[in-house]
C-alpha cells in the first residue's frame, strides 16, 4: 500500500470526501472502501515513519550535526511530500552556495565566528538566508513534531550560531530564533492553504538559491 493511500486514510472523516475528490482526479486511489484493518495499520506505520524522521531532524538541528541536504530529504519524509523535500534540498543548496559547505556544524561554526547569517555579510546573501528559512517555514505540514522540525531548521538557517564557546548572547539568539521559527511553522501550517504554501515555498527556496550563487557568478 502506498504512503499516499495510507495518509489519505489518516484524514479525518469530515475532510475525507474533499480529499478523495481531489485525489481521485489524479486516479491515485481506486474507488472503494479504504478503512480496513490493513489500511489502519499502514497509517500507523506511516505516522511512525514521519515521527521518526521529525525526531531525526530535530536532533540534527539542535546539535548542529549532520548535512543540510540530508535534512532536506528528511523534511520531505516528515511531510511525505516530494515538493516539501525539494524545498528542503534547494534551501540546503542555497546555504551550500553561500557557505561552501553543507555541514550543519560548519554552518553553526561560521555563524558563531562571523555572526548570524540573517544579518551578517552582504544584503543579498542575508536575503538569501531569510528566503530559504521562509520557504522551509511555509511548507511545514500540520502537527507539533513537524512544526518543531521545520521551525528549528529554518531558525538554524538564519540565526543558528554554535554554542561551543559558551557565549550567552549566542544562546539567547538561538533560543529566540528557534521559538520564532517553531511558532511561525505552526502558524503557517494552519493559516496558509497547502497548495499555495508549496508553490510559495518552492519559489522562495529557488530565489534563495539564485541569490546565493549570483554573487559568486558575477564576481567569478
Amino acid at each position, binding site marked *: 500500500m*502506498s*504512503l*499516499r493511500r495510507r495518509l489519505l*486514510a489518516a484524514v479525518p*472523516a469530515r475532510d475525507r470526501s474533499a480529499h478523495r475528490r481531489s485525489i481521485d482526479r*489524479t*486516479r*491515485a*486511489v481506486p474507488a472503494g472502501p479504504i*478503512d*480496513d*484493518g*490493513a*489500511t*489502519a*495499520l499502514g*497509517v*500507523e506505520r506511516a*505516522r*511512525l515513519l514521519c*515521527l*521518526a*524522521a*521529525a*525526531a*531525526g*531532524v*530535530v*536532533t*540534527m538541528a539542535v*546539535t548542529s*550535526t*549532520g*548535512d543540510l*541536504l*540530508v*535534512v532536506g*530529504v*528528511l523534511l*520531505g519524509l516528515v511531510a*511525505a*511530500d*516530494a515538493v516539501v*523535500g*525539494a524545498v528542503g*534540498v534547494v534551501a540546503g*543548496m542555497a546555504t*551550500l*552556495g553561500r557557505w*561552501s*559547505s*553543507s*555541514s*550543519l*556544524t*560548519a554552518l553553526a561554526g561560521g555563524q558563531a565566528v562571523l555572526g548570524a547569517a540573517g544579518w551578517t555579510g552582504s544584503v543579498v546573501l542575508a536575503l538569501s538566508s531569510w528566503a530559504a528559512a521562509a520557504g522551509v517555514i511555509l511548507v511545514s505540514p500540520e*502537527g*507539533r*513534531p513537524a512544526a518543531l522540525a521545520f521551525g528549528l531548521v529554518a531558525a538554524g538557517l538564519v540565526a543558528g550560531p554554535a554554542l561551543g564557546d559558551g557565549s550567552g548572547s549566542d544562546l539567547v539568539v538561538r533560543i529566540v530564533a528557534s521559538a520564532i521559527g517553531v511558532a511561525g511553522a505552526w502558524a503557517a501550517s494552519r493559516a496558509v492553504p497547502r497548495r499555495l504554501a508549496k508553490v510559495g515555498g518552492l519559489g522562495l527556496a529557488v530565489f534563495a538559491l539564485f541569490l546565493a550563487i549570483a554573487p559568486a557568478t558575477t564576481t*567569478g
Partner: protein
Amino acid sequence: MTGLLTGGQSAALVVALGAPVAGAIAVVTGRLSPVARVVQASAAVSAAAWVLLLCTGARGRAAVFHVSPLVAAGGCGVALLAAAALDGARRDHRAVVGTVLALVASSAGLAGGGGSGQVVLAGAVLAGLVVATAASVDALPPPERRATVLFALAGLGAAIVGFVLLRAGGDGWSLPSTGTVPRASVVAFVLAGAALVVAGTLTGRRPTAVLLAGGLVLGLAAGPLRAGTDDLAAVAIGLALLAVAAAATGRGATALGLLALAGGAGPAALVPASRLLAAGSVVAAAVDRPAAWLTAVPGAVALAVGVVDTGGPLATGIAVAASLVAATLAVRATGPAGKKDPVATGPDRPWATPGIAPAVIVGAWLTVSPGAWTWTGASLRSYDRGMALAVGAGLVTVAAALAPELRLLTRSAPQQAPRGLRRVQSPGGPPWRRSCWRGAGRPPSPWSRRTSLRRLGRRRPPPSR
C-alpha cells in the same frame, strides 16, 4: 606495482570466487534443492566475501586473480544482483542456470581482469562479460530479449573497440590506472559501460542485471583517466541527459547508473560521488522498489559538495541534471500510482525476501554511513555523524511511540482506535502483544454460521452453559 594479498584476504578471495562455482556445481548436479535458494546463498556468501575484501582495503594479487577496490565493489554488486534476480517474477530452471553462469563468469572476469591495481586487462574482462551476456540473455523471455541483446552487443562491441584503440595507441591490451590514454579509447569504454548499464537495467530483476555491475566497473575505471581535462565533456553531458530521460520514464536504477558514469567522465572532484552513485544504482536495481532510490542520497550529497569545490560549466551541468533526476524520481515515487516506475516490481517487504535481504543490508549501510566506504574517496564525515544521530533519535522515538505507557509523548497519534481497528488487551503473551490493535469492522463472512442462521430467519442458538 602491487604486492600479494595477505592470508586472510586471499582466503576471502577464494570464498568470493569459489562460492558461485559451488552454486553452479549444485545446479548442475541437482544435489541440493531448491537450486534457486542454493544459488542465492552462494551469491550472498560471495557478496559478503567481497565486502570483507573492500573493508580491509585489499589491493594486490593472488595467483592469476587481482583485487582492487573497484573490482571488489563490482564483484559484490554482481553477487547482489544475481541473488536478487532469482527472486524475480519468472524463476525457471533456465533462469537459475543463466544467473549462476553469469555470476561465475562476471566474478572471474572482473577478478581476472583486475590487473595490477586499477589496470583492466582485456581478455578476462571481455570473456567474462561475453559469457555472462550469453548466459543471462538466454534466460530472458523472448519479448524482453531483443532490446537487451541489442544494448548488450553494443556495449561489448564498444568495449572491444576501446581495447583495440588502446592497443593501437601503444598501451598494450590493458587499461592503466594512470597515465595518458587515447581519448577515443576512453570514450569507447565509457560508452560501453553506458550500454551495459542500460542492458542490465532494462528488464528489472533478471539475470541480465549482472551486466549493470560490469558496465559500471568498466566505465568508472576508464572515465577518471581523462578527469583532468574536458575531453569527455560532451560524453558526460550526453550521459547526464540520458539519465534525465531514464528518470522521466521511471527507470531509477538506469538513471543513477548513467549519472554515475557521467560523474566519472566529469571533473576529478566528482569521481567519489560517481562511485557512490554507482553503488546506489546497484542497490536500487537489486531491491527494485522506489524506496531504494534513497541510496542515491550519499552520492547526491557528495556530488553537490564536489560541484561547489570544483565549479565550472561541466560540473554545473552535471549537477543540474542530477537535480532533475532527483526531482523526477521523487515525484514518481510519491506521485499517482499510474505513473510510478514501470519496472519497480520488487516485493513489498524486500528485507524479508531472502534474495534481496543482502542488498537491503548493503543499501542501509550505504545510506546511513557512506563515510565508511573509504574506497570511494568521498569525505562525508558530517553526513555520517548526523545520520547516526538521526537514526538513533528515530529509533528511540519509534520505541517510545510503540510503548502504550508512553503514548502521551505523541499526542498527535490517535487517542481513539483507528478506523477499522479495536484495542485488544490480553494479559498473556509477550509484552509487545499485551495491548495492541487488531482488525475489526470487516463485513461478516457469508459462510459464517451466524450469517447462515440470519439468512434462514432463525435465531442464534443460546450459548451452552
